[in-house]
């Protein structure tokens, strides 16, 4: 099974114009051309791909690694049954 990093990179490569070679955990989202508005869209796609529901609380995500850790934390919470709830399967 591919890692969270790999799955996130797949979204970035598909939907955003990013250079594959730049996709390291340390890279800043801004430097990939993803500003705060772009992050909103990225997270919207993350919900779909990872089948998680993001909490309403704002979160500060500066690097690709930040997003990976955020997703992993939500996945862990979800496995514990304590997250905001999983998404219903797509119709």
């Amino acid at each position: 099974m591919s890692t969270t990093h790999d799955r996130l990179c797949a979204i970035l490569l598909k939907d955003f114009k990013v250079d594959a070679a730049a996709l390291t955990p340390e890279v800043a989202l801004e430097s990939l051309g993803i500003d705060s508005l772009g992050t909103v869209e990225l997270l919207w796609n993350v919900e779909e791909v990872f089948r998680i529901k993001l909490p309403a609380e704002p979160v500060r995500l500066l690097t690709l690694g930040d997003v990976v850790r955020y997703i992993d934390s939500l996945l862990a919470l979800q496995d514990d049954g304590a997250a905001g709830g999983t998404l219903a399967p797509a119709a």
Partner: protein
Amino acid sequence: MRRVAVTGIGVVSPLGNSVAEVWANAVAGRSAVHRLEAPFTGRLAAPLAATANFDGAAHFDGPRLRMLDRCSQFALFAANQAMKDAASAFSVAGSDADRERAGIFIGTGMAGSISMDDGYQTLYGAGSDRIKPYTILLGMHNAAAAWIGIEHGFRGPNLTYSTACSSAAVAIGEAWRRVASGELDIAIAGGSEAPLSCGSMKAWEALHTLATVDANDASASCKPFAKNRSGMVLAEGAACLVLEPWDEARSRGAFVHGELLGCGLSNDASHITQPSVAGQAATMRAALRAAGLDAAQIDAINAHATGTQANDRAETAAIKDVFGARAGQIPISATKAMHGHLLGAAGALECVLTLLALRHGVALPTLHLDLADADCDLDCVPHQARHGLALRKMLSNSFAFGGSNAVLVLGAAPPT
């Protein structure tokens, strides 16, 4: 007041996506009205439209495209084309003061209605709460104007006009006023509309204003001024003009498509849909006053002529009221028979066609006018374009639901 030159034109429309293509199709009298093929057309009583042959993916990359409703895509394409055509001295690298004297004026009736329709489909159709994060940005009425401002670095007034079917004419008229008054040195003005979603087409259908399908020829379904006219055909597209002070445009050697001489605005203040003869006549008179012209100086008219019973009858009476005994001698073109009704962009495309008609000395044809209507007994240039006319000044009429009327006065550019 300064004279105002049109130095750039851009179009994306059912008649083509360049000035040359639009003009060739218009002069030839080719109707772009057709049976609409879309997943929802089985739900439409009369699945007709005039569509633009335009794929946004061919012009905008993925991240950009996802932020642009089809309406904004059209507007940006048309504005970019118009700016390239104008080749003005304006530069995004110019001074703040110069950039603040550059304004944008866009008309749209329904703006990002396709994106809103998509959002409602997600929410209510699919029962999902996962509405796209950019829905507000896609749907908001000022999106098209905002994107043009970002693209071209215009930092002056960035205004969106939504007065239903006169939106673009209002926008162009307001831009004219500000360039003429000296407030602005350059303006991009026009309109954009992308109304061909299921929700909007059903809503128009419910109002009983849309044409029925002509049984013999779907492309002949919109029949302005004809006795058997049955309504309008919805269309999509955009047109933008670049406006500059006449003297500056001439001194820099710009090609001038024509002159924007004035604009008249008025409101029927009578009924939300029924057109008012007095209101339409008052608007034409206001336009003539703004241009400092007498009715006798108008050589031809591009009519609003939607193909509804009420509009075409009222517009005929209004033209008679303004032009008196001369009304029957003025060529009156109803080009919506060809390009359909672009709603909030209609006034911009028709303004472009009027400028081209002036430049080429051609009265464009009113198609499908086989059965004359005694209530529409003017010279409507039936079937075929009329060439070799000495056209110096024309009106382009735009009338709207809500009674918000706008009439533009345009002039041919004398040879340099």
